């Protein structure tokens, strides 16, 4: 929610030289993405004669993005604009953790365990979570998913942990 103290000095430097830090940094990151794409597609074949090679279009778009990113950064440098919005860590961290946990454990642990555990991890992402309530809703949701996806919709999905079945 609030700025972490470590961000403060960076911000002041930005504020001194850059009038619109939000666009400035945004443009720089776009340029970095473009450079990365140029590097990643450097091994691909370019134009041969008048026909496109595999690498032509990616490089074309990457150069375009490089120029646009530069322009956005330049605008941020010269024009007054908003500061970089504060990031929070709690929501992104726990939501990502829940997603990664789901991906890692859906195959070995099955839908029932995975869905419930991911629900609880995601619930950590908000300060307002009440645990009893979250557990009940999580359990109901897991039951619903366990009935809906494999049975009603017929999607192939492991239900229970592998070691229990064997």
């Amino acid at each position, binding site marked *: 929610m609030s700025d972490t103290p470590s961000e403060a000095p960076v911000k002041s430097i930005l504020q001194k030289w850059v009038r619109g830090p939000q666009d400035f940094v*945004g443009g720089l990151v776009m340029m970095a993405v473009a450079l990365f*794409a140029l590097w990643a597609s450097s091994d691909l*074949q370019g134009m041969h004669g008048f026909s496109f090679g595999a690498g032509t279009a990616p490089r074309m778009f990457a150069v375009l993005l490089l120029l646009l990113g530069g322009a956005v950064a330049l605008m941020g440098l010269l024009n007054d604009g908003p500061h970089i919005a504060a990031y929070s860590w709690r929501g992104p961290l726990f939501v*990502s953790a829940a997603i990664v946990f789901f991906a890692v454990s859906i195959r070995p642990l099955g839908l029932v365990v995975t869905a419930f555990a991911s629900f609880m991890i995601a619930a950590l992402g908000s300060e307002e979570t009440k645990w009893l309530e979250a557990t009940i809703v999580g359990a109901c949701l897991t039951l619903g998913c366990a009935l809906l996806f494999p049975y009603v919709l017929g999607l192939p999905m492991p239900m229970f942990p592998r070691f229990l079945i064997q």
Partner: protein
Amino acid sequence: MELFANLAHGFAVALSPINLLMCLIGALVGTLVGVLPGIGTIATVAMLLPITFGLPPVGALIMLAGIYYGAQYGGSTTSILVNIPGEATSVVTALDGHQMARQGRAGPALAIAAIGSFFAGCVATVLIAVLGAPLTKLALAFGPAEYFSLMVLGLIFAVVLAKGSVLKAIAMIVFGLLLSMVGSDIETGASRMAFNIPELADGLGFATVAMGVFGFAEIIRNLDAGAGMSRDLVQQKITGLMPTRKDLMDSAPAIVRGTILGSILGILPGGGAVIASFAAYTLEKKIAKDPSRFGRGAIEGVASPESANNAAAQTSFIPLLTLGIPPNAVMALMVGAMTIHGIVPGPQVMVKQPDLVWGMIASMWIGNLMLIIINLPLVGIWVRLLRVPYRLMFPSIVIFCAIGIYSVNNAPVDVVLAGAFGLVGYWLIKHDFEPAPLLLGMVLGPLMEENLRRALLISRGDWSVFLSRPLSAVLLAIAAGLLVLAVLPTLRAKRDEVFVESEG
């Protein structure tokens, strides 16, 4: 008349019990999604794509279409009753709609929104049926150069009409184009930017990116704002749904204007329901005798944008069905749904899949009728649903999204990728980059590359082919003109002013 024969055929398809059921489910789910803030149409359609695997293609597309226009209805309900627009399309409806509700006129506001939407839906259905065949013929005259130019025009439209910086919107489109390059090259089969990761060999899944950028990123952003969003519920009982005679007289012309404007903006690539509702509200305010009434419960302010967004939601199927070009992100997902079922969108769909096209068109009219019948009595339930706190809703959405992505390919990597794109989307929001153009660029990327390559191959490497073919030159000229207009300072100022006002 061929038209009537086609429509009759469509109704025969759409009225089969299974398709009626699909239509009803789609409309209900759409309304639900529209009502709940924090989960959008794009994420829902992406989430439900795998569910449609087991369905016949016609039923699947009827359901997905239902979700799309159903959401336009649902969004207006919450805008009016609780001042929370469930969808971006109904942001402007909240301005006057909620004021009407506070004055105890929630009933008429809801009824006018429903009537306007229904009228717009009827007109748009006829429009699709009428314009479909001629546009398909036009499409057959299109060569690769024209297709490329048309897509450029579409992307420029998306830029001009998007809010915020033109430069940043273009950057987002190019970013999307670049993302679409990941995976195998169509012609040479060379692996591009895939880093030998087998899951990337087929390219980034469109649903995966959409779910990340629109689903997960939205959730993370909402958590930022604090889950306890203030909910200014209208408590008194909703009595008297029927609008008075004066209400009807006042809103009838507004509904017609909104429908016309929405239909036009929907057809144009890059347009869409959000822009249509903003434009319609602005128009009403401009031509009103007493503009000060707006924002204080003017019924025209509800009637016109609601008609416009529904008309646009439906007419945006026209470029998809006739040219195979998705005009917005939801339509891009529909392309994904069609591809899953082995249907290649484009001019040949109309001829080869008459069941699908006409069935879907007819189902839109039926769906609109269902919405007007089921929604007014259900208003109470929707309002109660809004009381479900976000702290319980968001983990559920996370789980549904994760299961949805996983089941597309049964690939855990897809889930991780979507999570990563969620963080990318969060960063984009923080830096005021709009994710919608990115998605549009990503969808059009492969099509653009293919047509660009083909056009240059045919012209033997001569780039002037885009200007020497008249149709292509006209399309590019329009695109250039629009871009100049958008950058001109006076117009920009006005455009920004429109958005600022409407957001207030």
